[in-house]
Structures are given as structure tokens and as C-alpha cells.
């Protein structure tokens, strides 16, 4: 132990953004990310958990539905109950939805196509550990790459504090044209009532180094720094 912040990045069969997430967090001083296989038990001592993007179990049945029953998710649930920050990116968001850790559903994009492009999202709340270093209304550039990202809210509807990111145009206007997938209300990311579990479809880990972005965006770093260092 060196006293750094320990983050578990849970790897499922089919995860493919796991190493990117590790790299993004390794760049933050004092943060020690580890890749953890989903069947391994050793995540209970971690200070934060990331469920990375990619696929899991072939996304059979529904994206995230099988991973949601894996041993790691039982442990993630216990950590989440303790208030530990849990971040689900893309497939990780789908896993959190299917595990019931976040409300609603993620359905196939309205175009029935895989959408891979840069988007802009607007910060709707700064009450979460993931956004406390941002300001409300801030516009972030992050890419998306998914087939099932059309958020559908629960019957009880989403509470205002649970809405974290919405797709918007470059000026921060939430418009139909800036909605890449037909997602309800331009929803790109939501959190649980307590705010310590966040799921989002955009990939912050793909926007942490300017060389990765045609816009030289490093906006994704804000999310990791906020989650791990505070404001």
C-alpha cells in the first residue's frame, strides 16, 4: 500500500475500454487503478469502481443483462450502498441499468444503427462526486460509440437530481438535432438518488488526451479528476 486512491476497473468478457480507463486514471497523481476480472473477489477494499465500455458476454439477451448477474456486481452493489463512487461508461452504464443500480432502460438507438461520433453534453447537476469539479451548464466534448443508448425512463420518471448529462449543441442548447440516438429528453447520463452511482453513454476516457480528439478535447479528465480528487 502506498496510500494512493485505489480504483477497480472491472473487466468482463468483451470489455474493450478497460485499459483506456486505467490509462486515463493513471495520469492523475496519487491514483492507482487496477484491472479486476469480474469473477475475482477483491474489489471490496477499493475507493472507487469503474465499469468500462465495450461489450459483455456478447451483449446477448440485452447489453449488460448477463454481466449484471456476475459476482462482481454483487460486490459493486455493496460498495455503492456504502457510498463508494461507481462509474459506468457505455456498456458499464448498461450493466448498472440491468443490475437495477440505476433506474430505467437503455434501448436500441432510434435509427437502429451503431452511432460513433463526437458529441457535446451539458452538465445538469454538480451534486455528484463525478461532476463536483464542473459547473452547472458546462458543455463537455466526449465521443459516443454504441447501439443501445436510447434512454427510457422508469414509470415513476427520473427525478431532477438524477439527471446528470444531456446531449446539447456547442452552445449548450438541448435540441433535437443534438440528440444522436433518440434518447428520451436528450439524456446522456444519470445517477442514483444518492449521487454516488453514475452511468453515462459518452466515453470520458476517450477524451482525456488532446491527441485523441479532433477538437483537442480533454474534457473527460474533468470527470475522472472530479471523481477522484474532488473539486
Amino acid at each position, binding site marked *: 500500500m502506498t496510500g494512493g486512491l485505489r480504483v477497480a476497473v472491472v473487466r468482463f468478457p468483451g470489455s474493450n475500454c478497460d485499459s483506456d480507463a486505467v490509462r486515463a486514471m493513471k495520469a492523475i497523481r496519487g491514483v492507482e487503478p487496477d484491472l479486476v476480472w469480474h469473477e475475482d473477489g477483491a474489489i471490496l477494499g477499493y475507493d472507487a469502481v469503474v465499469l468500462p465500455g465495450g461489450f459483455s458476454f456478447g451483449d446477448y*439477451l*440485452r447489453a449488460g*443483462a448477463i454481466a*449484471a*448477474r456476475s459476482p462482481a456486481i454483487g460486490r459493486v452493489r455493496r460498495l455503492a450502498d456504502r457510498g463508494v463512487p461507481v462509474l459506468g461508461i457505455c456498456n458499464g452504464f448498461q450493466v448498472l*441499468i*440491468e443490475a*437495477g443500480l440505476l*433506474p*430505467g*432502460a437503455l*434501448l*436500441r438507438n*432510434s*435509427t*437502429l444503427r451503431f452511432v460513433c461520433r463526437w458529441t457535446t453534453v451539458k452538465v445538469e447537476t454538480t451534486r455528484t462526486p463525478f461532476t463536483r469539479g464542473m459547473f452547472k451548464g458546462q458543455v463537455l466534448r466526449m465521443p459516443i460509440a454504441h447501439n443501445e443508448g*436510447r434512454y*427510457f*425512463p*422508469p*414509470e415513476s420518471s427520473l427525478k431532477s437530481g438524477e439527471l446528470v448529462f444531456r446531449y446539447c449543441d456547442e452552445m449548450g442548447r438541448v435540441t433535437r438535432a443534438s440528440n444522436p440516438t*433518440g434518447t428520451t429528453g436528450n439524456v446522456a447520463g444519470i445517477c442514483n438518488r444518492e449521487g454516488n452511482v453514475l452511468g453515462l453513454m459518452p466515453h470520458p476516457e476517450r477524451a482525456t488526451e488532446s491527441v485523441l480528439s479532433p477538437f483537442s478535447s480533454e474534457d473527460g479528465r474533468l470527470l475522472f479528476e472530479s471523481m477522484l480528487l474532488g473539486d
Partner: protein
Amino acid sequence: MSRTRLFSVNVVVSNREGAGDPEGETIYRDLVSKSGFDDVKSIRSGKFLRFDVVATNQASARKLVASICDELRIYNPAAHSISVECA
């Protein structure tokens, strides 16, 4: 002891009304309706699963599958409806 045998139980998961069904709508609009089958008024798409289960009768086979669908979240109740029928 009652005798058991194998029953097939069909499960169809589809999007609830309101959750949209772009696949069903596209099949309807761009294939069936466009081909002149005017008597067809709508199409819903879904995911089909067949469970072959050992049970004493159809009702208990169906009940077992229905409970599995709930317990393992074979469908997401926020967006899906489900039908469970013996084949």
C-alpha cells in the same frame, strides 16, 4: 410422486407501448405496408426465447419460466412487456 415430462415454454420480450419499436415500425412501413398488404395494420418486433423445462404439467412449467424471467430480469420492466406461453 407425479410423473414429470419436458414442456416447451415460449417467451417473447417486446418494448412496451410508449417505449417505441423502431424495428417493428420499419418492417411494417418499409416492407409489409409498402408491398401492398393493406390488411396489416401494425407489427411489433421482439426477442424470442424457448425454455425446455421438466415439470409435472403445463401450468407449473409456465409458472417456473415466468418466475425465472422475473428473478433473472430476462426483461426490463421499465421498458418491456413479456408473454410466457406453453408451446
